[in-house]
């Protein structure tokens, strides 16, 4: 059983599983699109206040909003195949372009938050499980429960109060200092300063999740027979904890972490709103305000595909972590 064949098999399986999921999501998207009362043209008309009925009909014709449902669905699928998500009635720009502009910032924010949450959370969980039942475990457990209960937008605002308003250490929003002509290292540091608070607000909830997950998974593994075998071999506690307990606990931890990617994307939406970061979430917020359902659905579709890709990556990671996967 070579490693490569296992990886290929996993990739093939993930792809085969993803295709029907993707089709279902596309159809669901389309149904939601149809359900929307009124359309973007109504909103535009209401905003301008001066649109005539003829003008609105012409606009509907232009956006393809008058055709029968089945025709609209096939047109929709056809456009998706060409990576065309339609044109935003509100921004007057192709939606795909809008999303492409905003996506990198959101990905960066999520990657930062995920990294922070994973490192701190797993470390905290490992400590908690090692001292299970003792004072340090209890204190950390309560703390993680608290982190788990705080809305991320609220902690973001509180961090702004503390670090921007009161202490003045970090900027309260935006994505970089404009007009200072920063380059190289200085620009990077500047960018990072704007991302610290958003990433921390987003990460906090996931620190709690990963800490609790790690604690539970490690306690579960600790009760396994092979841990007793490792102790009977005379291995020191650190080796037992890392090589035998944590190494096995990583399998359930990564499974759950993969399942949280979608939720984290939702969290990024709110956090970007708080910190005025020009990412996907901010775009979603603007689309909500403008009732631009097309843009919202474009974001939903794209973020679903993002989750599918992340799930496939987690599957791939599992072939490295768990030798039983990919063999039959």
């Amino acid at each position, binding site marked *: 059983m070579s490693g490569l064949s296992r990886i290929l098999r996993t990739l093939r399986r993930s792809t085969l599983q993803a295709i029907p999921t993707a089709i279902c999501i596309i159809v669901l998207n389309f149904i939601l699109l149809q359900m929307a009362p009124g359309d973007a043209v109504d909103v535009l008309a209401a905003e301008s206040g001066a649109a005539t009925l003829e003008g609105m009909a012409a606009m509907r014709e232009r956006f393809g909003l008058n055709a029968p449902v089945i025709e609209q669905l096939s047109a929709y699928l056809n456009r998706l195949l060409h990576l065309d998500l339609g044109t935003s009635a509100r921004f007057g720009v192709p939606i795909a372009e809008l999303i492409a502009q905003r996506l990198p910032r959101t990905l960066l924010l999520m990657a930062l938050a995920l990294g922070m949450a994973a490192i701190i959370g797993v470390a905290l969980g490992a400590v908690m499980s090692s001292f299970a039942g003792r004072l340090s475990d209890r204190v950390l457990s309560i703390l993680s429960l608290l982190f788990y209960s705080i809305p991320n937008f609220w902690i973001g*605002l509180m961090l702004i109060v503390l670090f921007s*308003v009161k202490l003045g250490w970090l900027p309260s929003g935006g994505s970089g200092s404009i007009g200072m002509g920063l380059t190289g290292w200085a620009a990077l540091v500047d960018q990072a300063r704007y991302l610290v608070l958003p990433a921390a607000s987003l990460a906090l909830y996931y620190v709690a999740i990963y800490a609790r997950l790690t604690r539970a998974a490690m306690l579960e593994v600790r009760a396994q027979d092979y841990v007793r075998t490792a102790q009977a071999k005379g291995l020191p506690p650190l080796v037992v904890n890392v090589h035998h307990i944590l190494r096995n606990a990583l399998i359930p931890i990564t499974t759950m972490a993969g399942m949280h990617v979608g939720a984290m994307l939702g969290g990024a939406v709110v956090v970007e709103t708080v910190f005025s970061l020009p990412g996907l979430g901010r775009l979603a917020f603007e689309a909500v305000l403008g009732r631009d359902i097309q843009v919202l659905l474009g974001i939903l579709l794209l973020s679903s595909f993002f989750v599918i890709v992340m799930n496939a990556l987690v599957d791939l990671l599992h072939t490295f972590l768990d030798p039983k996967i990919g063999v039959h």
Partner: protein
Amino acid sequence: MRLPFFRNEPPTPYDMAAANLSNRELRLFLTNPNAVVGLGILASVALLALLAPALYPGDPLSVVAEPFLWPGQDWAYPLGTDALGRDVMAGALHGARISLYVGLAATIVGFGIGLLVGASAGYFGGRTDAALVKLIEVFQTLPNFVLVVVIVAVLEPTPTVVAVAIAIVSWPTIARLARAEFRSIRERDYVTAAHSLGCGSIHIMGREILPNALPPLIVTSSIMVASAILMESGLSFMGLSDSNIISWGSMIGAGREFIRTAWYLTALPGIAIVLTVLALNMIGDGLNDALNPRTQND
């Protein structure tokens, strides 16, 4: 406690999970300090929410005093007033009603859908299972909060729509869990015994499997209420709520503009959310310790 090295004599963890719900588990739950504190907080919040119309009759959105009174500045308005001179205390109490309503309604609907789908998938297996698992997978792939935002934006932001939207994204958690429980319990010998006695599917699902599958589902549902409240607050913070009904999230959203001068307007409703959600999570932990002794530490 676990005594893994005996075979028969002391009860195994499986036995402990098996004890009848009414006595031992309830006692375990009520002697858990976390659970008791959580229950206390939640009961207070619920009581205040129920009493809100009596304590603060009238519209909590009406202007009652001068704006920007800080908490404690005027004891007639213990939590101060907002930018328009509305009583923050009245808002907080009335806001509790929306949070609890959405949290409970979303969980009840989500639990119902999830149990139905998960139990059928786990019990019947085969093609039913494959189809339902695909359905669960699709809903788990859609990012929860984004989907809720879309649904609420497509429909209208009334509390009931919000609750249903949250139920639509949260049922897969229950469904997955119910499926796993039904699948594994289906293979137990007592279910085989029921089959061999001639029991029908409805009897087996309802009387033999469900009572044993319920404990982890109950634990999860208390956490579902908590996350529904969090989601609702996020929605109303973003302005996706009925503007005629006050909620904690919308109070934070409104207070946000004055964060430099009157940060208490943001802080106070947030603390209300954290306390309520924390209480529910503490109850969930207590339930978990009482109902699933497997996950307890030595």
